[in-house]
């Protein structure tokens, strides 16, 4: 079993839709939870991070962590064609091991 599981999609939605992207993880020692966005032929860029259960909002984006279920989500409201990208979840252990464990990424297309 991989430490982080993420459905690679692809996911295709109409403009304005609410998008839900998800990852599950296996180790309760994970502490930091990140979402990165990667446009085609670019490097990933950090969208949001959180280290506690619950919701964190930033504009149209909401990151949600449920530590009891080992489940993280990214919601995109009022999706735009410019949101078309691959979204990668990444998780980090607590303590001295600061290595990030990455999901495979979900490819999202928002159609005008």
């Amino acid at each position, binding site marked *: 079993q991989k430490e982080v599981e993420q459905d690679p999609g692809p996911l295709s939605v109409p403009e304005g839709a609410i998008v839900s992207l998800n990852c599950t993880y296996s180790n309760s020692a994970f502490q930091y939870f990140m979402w990165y966005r990667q446009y085609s032929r670019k490097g990933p860029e950090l969208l949001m991070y959180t280290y506690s259960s619950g919701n964190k909002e930033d504009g149209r984006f909401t990151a949600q962590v449920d530590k009891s279920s080992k489940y993280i989500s990214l919601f995109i409201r009022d999706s735009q064609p410019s949101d078309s990208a691959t979204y*990668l979840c990444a998780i980090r252990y607590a303590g001295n091991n600061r290595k990030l464990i990455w999901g495979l990424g979900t490819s999202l297309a928002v159609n005008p």
Partner: protein
Amino acid sequence: GAGVSQSPSNKVTEKGKDVELRCDPISGHTALYWYRQSLGQGLEFLIYFQGNSAPDKSGLPSDRFSAERTGGSVSTLTIQRTQQEDSAVYLCASSLGRRSSYEQYFGPGTRLTVT
């Protein structure tokens, strides 16, 4: 300020040749990471530098791969005797320090094709 830069952006090489990939991190970032990204494989960690030392080389796939960092800044990833399975995008990232590893800044990558 300037972001992370990588060169070359594309590299086509023949099987068996050696290649060098370069990364210039953000100024002041002490932590530097190399990853490999292949279609359908996600981001594969290769090596992590803190300053000029590499406390974690666990992701290097074989002894054909090596990396160094000088002056706490520029890093070079060298692949010797390249094989076709080395074809991938090689990404470099930096962060302010190890504690900030959750916030990594990536370069655009070097797309390596081994023919």
